[in-house]
């Protein structure tokens, strides 16, 4: 657990994010822990509403005004080698803005709405380049064309002056990737980058991201609800449920040796190509509970098929190391230990 921070370009600890509204307080993240080793990619997986996007937005301090980081640290190893806690930076401060887009950049789920419809692609890409790399307008434009060529947009010289509505969905997502990478960031956060695309385009875009990541030695956080995507793309996986990481491990740990009932259910719910005829895809019973009022005990207990006793309802399980760098938060694997830990924690 106490590995030196130098290996990790980003380390998030005990991140808590709350949204305050008239209806009550939403606990969007309740102590999220993960780390991104330099040059590696990690995946964050979970159902809708489990706090994946909120976690990503917190890193860049992009939360809407109703959302606040209430606890935790986000340690980032900046270009100059210093380690900065991003939670200490003001959201609109100069330092934070320099990191945004310049050192950590992000691609979003909806390529349709992520571009302004009334500005040209060139305008929107070169804007970031001029801002962070202080290039002239003409040079920024050349760089934008270069980036569009890199992401495989044909006829980039001409198309750079078109508007986003003249691009197809897949093309737009490519342009989005070009925009994100234009300033040579250290970390790329990809928030469901392929969810809104059709399957063939999805595969192309994923391949593109992977190729670029290898080529540029990027660190990447891939956020998705699709375990299938994760398997081909990342080194280390974090499974999130209700604003918490419930299990983390290498891709092999997660797919072959999943310990948490929720992870197992998620894997079960992937349709299999070679399954027996008549075999049915299972789904996880129930839906994600409301984040207004978190359930007591283990957050998953109401939907858990392996719930074994009262402890699941009353105590919160803590992460237990069950293998090399493979952690799981479940009493199934630590009946005694979990109880003790829970008691100690109070």
């Amino acid at each position, binding site marked *: 657990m106490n590995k030196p921070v130098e290996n990790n370009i980003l380390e998030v600890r005990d991140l808590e994010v709350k949204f305050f509204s008239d209806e009550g307080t939403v606990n969007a993240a309740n102590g999220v822990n993960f780390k991104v080793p330099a040059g590696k990619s990690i995946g964050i997986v979970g159902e809708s509403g489990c706090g994946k996007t909120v976690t990503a937005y917190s890193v860049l301090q992009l939360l809407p005004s109703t959302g606040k980081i209430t606890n935790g640290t986000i340690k980032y190893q900046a270009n100059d080698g210093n380690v900065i806690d991003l939670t200490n930076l003001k959201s609109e401060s100069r330092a934070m803005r320099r990191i945004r887009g310049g050192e950590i950049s992000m691609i979003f789920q909806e390529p349709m709405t992520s571009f302004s419809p009334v500005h040209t692609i060139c305008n929107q890409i070169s804007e970031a380049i001029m801002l962070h790399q202080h290039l002239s307008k003409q040079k920024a434009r050349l760089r934008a064309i270069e980036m569009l060529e890199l992401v495989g947009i044909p006829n980039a010289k001409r198309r750079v002056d078109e508007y986003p509505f003249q691009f197809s969905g897949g093309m737009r997502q490519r342009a989005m990737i070009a925009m994100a990478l234009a300033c040579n960031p250290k970390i790329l956060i990809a928030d469901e980058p392929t969810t809104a695309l059709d399957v063939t385009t999805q595969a192309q875009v994923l391949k593109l991201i992977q190729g670029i990541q290898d080529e540029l030695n990027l660190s990447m956080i891939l956020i998705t609800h699709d375990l299938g995507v994760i398997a081909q793309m990342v080194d280390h996986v974090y499974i999130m449920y209700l604003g918490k990481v419930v299990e983390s491990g290498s891709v092999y740990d997660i797919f072959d040796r999943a310990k948490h009932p929720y992870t197992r259910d998620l894997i079960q719910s992937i349709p299999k190509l070679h399954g027996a005829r008549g075999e049915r895809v299972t789904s996880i019973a*129930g839906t994600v509970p409301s984040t207004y009022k978190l359930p007591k005990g283990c957050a998953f207990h109401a939907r858990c098929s392996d719930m074994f006793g009262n402890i699941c309802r009353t105590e919160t399980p803590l992460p237990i190391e069950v293998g090399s760098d493979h952690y799981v938060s479940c009493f199934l694997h630590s009946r005694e230990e979990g109880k003790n830990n829970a008691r100690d924690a109070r």
Partner: protein
Amino acid sequence: MFFTQNPEDNLAINDRQKELLEEEVDETEEQFYYATQWQLMWWNFRKHRLAVGCGILILFMYLMVLVPEFIAPYEPSTRNRRYANAPPQRVRLVSDQGFHFRPFVYDLTQEIDPETLQRNYVLDKSTIKPIRFFVRGVDYKLWGLIPSNIHLFGVDDGMLFLFGTDRLGRDMFTRVIYAARISMSIGLIGVFLSFVLGLTLGGISGYLGGRVDNIIQRIMEIIRSFPQIPLWMALSAAIPPHWSPVRTYFAITVILSVIGWTNLARQVRSKIISLKNEDFVVAAQLSGTSETRIVTRHLIPSFMSHIIAVITLAIPTMILAETSLSFLGIGLRPPVVSWGVLLQQSQNLYALTQAPWLMIPGLFVVVYVLAFSFLGDGLRDAADPYGGMKR
């Protein structure tokens, strides 16, 4: 199909889990998921305290104009020659003799200025006239049926002019109350007519599309190109002066709504167009539901709440239009009294400076319109049932 096994497997939740699920779901939350559109709207609406307050105020105003004969102490056309252009009497609780539990007014007496020969009103501080409630006064028949002579308030002898009198000595308070009945109903009837027109034509235009849509769109475009007030002026000027007040009243209402429906039709049309391709409508079409049923059962209910908000916001426009027309003398005509007709008296600077209280009906227009605007605004916010859920 993959679903060859026992369908009961699909419900693979064990009993304990089921029990847990039921226990866990918060009650209010459960209500939220099962609430109808109207319940959601009501819950959202309740949060807008200003809008709720305005709703209550409007309700109160309408209750008042249901029984103007009872509320008003006099009759709207009774002239009191002795009290022409009398200023409003202030209701007081404290006199020279100290505090009174019953509110009272001082009597008004006239003095003629020996130099200018102008009549001036002075307060006669020696006569205290207590205001009494449920007093007997002029006979009237409530709704033409119930004979009565009880008025909400009045004084025992002499006159009580809360809002002063006009130049013929008619009590302005009484006239404002009676005018409210006309002004407030013309808004409702006018909006109702334009609602019928707008919903029908907008609905047809949006649902059928194609040529019909095109034609209706052009008609709307043309009507909208006329500057409203000159068009109203032209149409109202065409009402023959010899028509009876009631006929004029309806003619004005029709004129207002003939122009007013376009806005509503536009909203209905765009809503229908966006809803027409929604899955639930396509599903209804595929299962052979008739067109009429789709429109009345699926489409209209899904944007009704929005339409109600639009209608609420259309009422003030109607009132303002009627007031402007009557003010110019081409709307309603005396002896019918509406707020606009009353305001006509204050059209020139002389009247205005001599009797500024003649502008009081304008205050009612402002309050009424403001209340409807806030109510409509609150309704519009509430009409988006999941609007509050957006993050």
